[in-house]
């Protein structure tokens, strides 16, 4: 095999999480390589909407991660700004019926206690914030910390700014192992890339990469469709979604669940997403999914009924059974780190993930409790549940 310059760390995956890991590793002074079988943003990142949300998360470790990330994104925006189409537009969560208001109040109160800004919006103020919102909605909450980036641009610019060596279009075929089974690099179709640390940021394929090291990590795909309208003047100002979205994210049900997250983009099209289904990597279109997305968007913004849906795209979110990502050193395999399984929140959670991985790699104190994200936490579940 070819000998190549030894690196301090090899990141597998050129999606937004891998790019963020490379960015913070490089900032910590590590010589970094990024390997991906495809181009930058070729997987879930390229199919994402670019949600940087705190509004949809209940108090707990993921919200803490999201709050850290929201701060980091603001810092990154100062560096990348318009190039990644960062927009601190805020989220507006609305109840679709009066009975939905109470759970929303309770949810927001708990979030505020955890550090989230959540501003109640009365029924008669909704249309001041969103003039095209349907009449008669009972109220909602404004989340000023919610923001937006264009995910492919975010990944590409983070990766470029990292200065890491890019090995794109180069599939990882195996892991190099040293004494005691330690991971010492990756093998690819073009040769070996040696490094004392390997970061698994392979998204939906994270489970397979872990398996190359003999480590169990049950990453599963959760399919989503997004509808994209024709370019429109700015008729949707925030990220607007119905309150039932919150229940969907935490849901363990395998049935179709969707709620319309509606938002404008700098380029003009309105994005409507996203559905959530557990159907493996099945790519078959089910028009009922598109119907639900369209119907919910039209219910929130009746003006959208008159526009054309120009295209639709699908993606597969990488999720773990407890809906938390795997972040950090793998206690079972020396040299192996994980940064995957972020489900639909990878764009938002990428900077915090990268920062914490960078700190672990350099032996610094993460300054954050990584225990809930321990990669080996699924060992005891093995074979216990059908889905995992």
């Amino acid at each position, binding site marked *: 095999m070819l000998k190549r310059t030894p690196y301090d760390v090899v990141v597998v995956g050129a999606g937004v999480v891998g790019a963020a890991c490379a960015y913070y590793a490089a900032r910590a002074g590590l010589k970094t390589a990024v390997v991906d079988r495809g181009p930058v943003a070729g997987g879930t990142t390229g199919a994402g909407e670019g949600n940087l949300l705190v509004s949809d998360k209940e108090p707990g470790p993921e919200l803490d991660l999201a709050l850290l990330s929201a701060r980091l994104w603001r810092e990154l925006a100062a560096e990348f700004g318009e190039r990644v189409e960062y927009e601190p537009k805020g989220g507006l969560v609305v109840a679709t019926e009066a009975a939905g208001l109470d759970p929303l109040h309770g949810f927001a109160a708990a979030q505020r206690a955890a550090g989230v800004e959540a501003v109640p919006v009365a029924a008669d103020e909704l249309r001041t914030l969103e003039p095209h919102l349907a009449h008669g909605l009972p109220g909602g909450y404004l989340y000023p910390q919610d923001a937006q980036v264009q995910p492919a641009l975010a990944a*590409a610019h983070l990766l470029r700014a990292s200065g890491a060596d890019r090995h794109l279009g180069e599939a990882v075929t195996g892991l190099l192992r040293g004494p005691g089974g330690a991971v010492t690099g990756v093998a690819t179709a073009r040769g070996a890339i040696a490094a004392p640390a390997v970061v698994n940021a392979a998204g939906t394929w994270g489970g397979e990469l872990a398996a190359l090291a003999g480590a169990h990590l049950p990453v599963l795909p959760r399919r989503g469709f997004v509808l994209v309208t024709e370019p429109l003047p700015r008729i949707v100002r925030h990220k607007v979604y119905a309150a039932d979205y919150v229940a969907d994210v935490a849901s363990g049900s395998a049935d179709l669940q969707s709620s319309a997250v509606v938002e404008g983009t700098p380029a003009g099209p309105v994005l409507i997403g996203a559905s959530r289904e557990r159907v493996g990597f099945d790519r*078959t279109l089910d028009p009922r999914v598109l119907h639900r997305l369209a119907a919910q968007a*039209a219910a929130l913004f009746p003006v959208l009924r008159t526009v*054309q849906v120009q295209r*639709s795209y699908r993606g597969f979110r990488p999720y773990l059974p407890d809906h938390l990502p795997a972040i950090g050193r793998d206690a079972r395999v020396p040299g192996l780190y994980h940064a995957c399984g972020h489900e639909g929140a990878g764009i938002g959670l990428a900077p915090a993930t990268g920062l914490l991985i960078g700190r672990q790699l350099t032996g610094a104190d993460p300054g954050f409790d990584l225990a809930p994200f321990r990669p080996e936490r699924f060992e005891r579940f093995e074979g216990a549940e059908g889905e995992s």
Partner: protein
Amino acid sequence: MPTSKSEPTGPAGGRAGPCYDLAVIGAGPAGLAAADTAARFGLRVALVDAGSRLGGQYYRHPAPELGAARPGRLHHGWAVFTRLRARLAASPLVDHLAGHHVWAAEAGGPGDGGRPWRLHATHGPGAADRTTVRARAVLLATGAHERHLPFPGWTLPGVVSAGGAQAVLKSSLVLPGRRIVVAGSGPLLLAVASSLVSAGAEVPAVVEAASYLGYARGLPVLAGNPAKLAEGAAHGAGLLRRGVRLRRGSAVVEAHGTDRVTAVTVARLDSRWRPVPGSGRRIACDALAIGHGLVPQIELAVELGAGTVTGPDGAVALEVDAEQRTSVPGLWAAGETCGVGGADLALAEGVLAAHAVAGRPAPAREAATRRRRRAFAALMAAAHAPGPDWTGWVTDDTEVCRCEEVPAREVRAAVEELGAGDARTVKLLTRAGMGWCQGRMCGPAVARLSGGGAGRPDSRPLSCPVPLAQLAEPRPD
């Protein structure tokens, strides 16, 4: 055959229509031949087409209101078309769903007892202007669209696509200019030039990028296709007689003008299609008709996971067996969707597919035509394949994606600086290919500038725009 025939039970508005034996998508030569043959075997057929009149691009003809005295004057094989049209109109088994854009196809279940196929179509802007066509089998005969290779000035008014110029001429009897340079590559150029000259235009030059040396390698194939040779020779001779000059191994590398094209620069190309420095010559004109051949339109089948093959010209077509079956059970394809090869081939494949759908043995005559014409099509595709270095004439300022106004500079930056290695990533990073035409116009150019080939086309859950209100309505079934 008109839609009205099936109106009582027809697939209109929100109601579920009848279940057809075969749904044919596209009413060009392949679709017409298939629908006609299938109906003659007693199959109930839905002929679903985006156009308002039968015929597709090939048999495009003026609306009756224009009162054209001889609508077939600009056409080869017009008699074949009028015969098919008459038979289809008389058939009680064929419903023509005109103006129907199919935005998605849902595959049916296996066997006669399985779930039928469902084609979701839009036929107007209103919430009710939608149809779900149910059928036991589907034939994809959606034809092809033109391949465009950008060059400086190609967005100027007066620069039109070669196929577009011919389409406008066929449907509206209007010429794009008075002095028209025809350029690009492929057999369509001679046919277009012929049509334009017949309609009274002056054509100072036909500029063909290929050297035609490619044809010399396929003499046996040429000998097997005398009709094709005669057709080409007839166009060529007619053009020569009218003083039209054919420049081979050359390309229009720039169009000049401010409000409208006033001249073009034609340069010689080397074998890799790199312009030869110093060879540029200016030709005055008031229009440029340009085309680089056709690319199969196969989004619906790609979305269903159908197998594809890449032709000698880099165009991706559907993979079919000898009876036009795709790799998706219940889905057939015929004509240009299986590789661009012209109307005679499409007619033969339509007939073959209908036989297979009806469970009849393949007819020998059409099978032989198919073999011969497929060999010729492969030869043609190889001869006119864009050379690898054609991007040499694309300056950084050249707009590559017209819908989103993305210049070549941005595409190159995405590749060189941001790590995009294919057309999809370039699209995500630059928006090239995200506009109205969804990359049909700029796809091949973006792919080449990204350093990749055409590759497998992007999958598209929606193959065309759909009014949101139609998606939002509850489904009838």
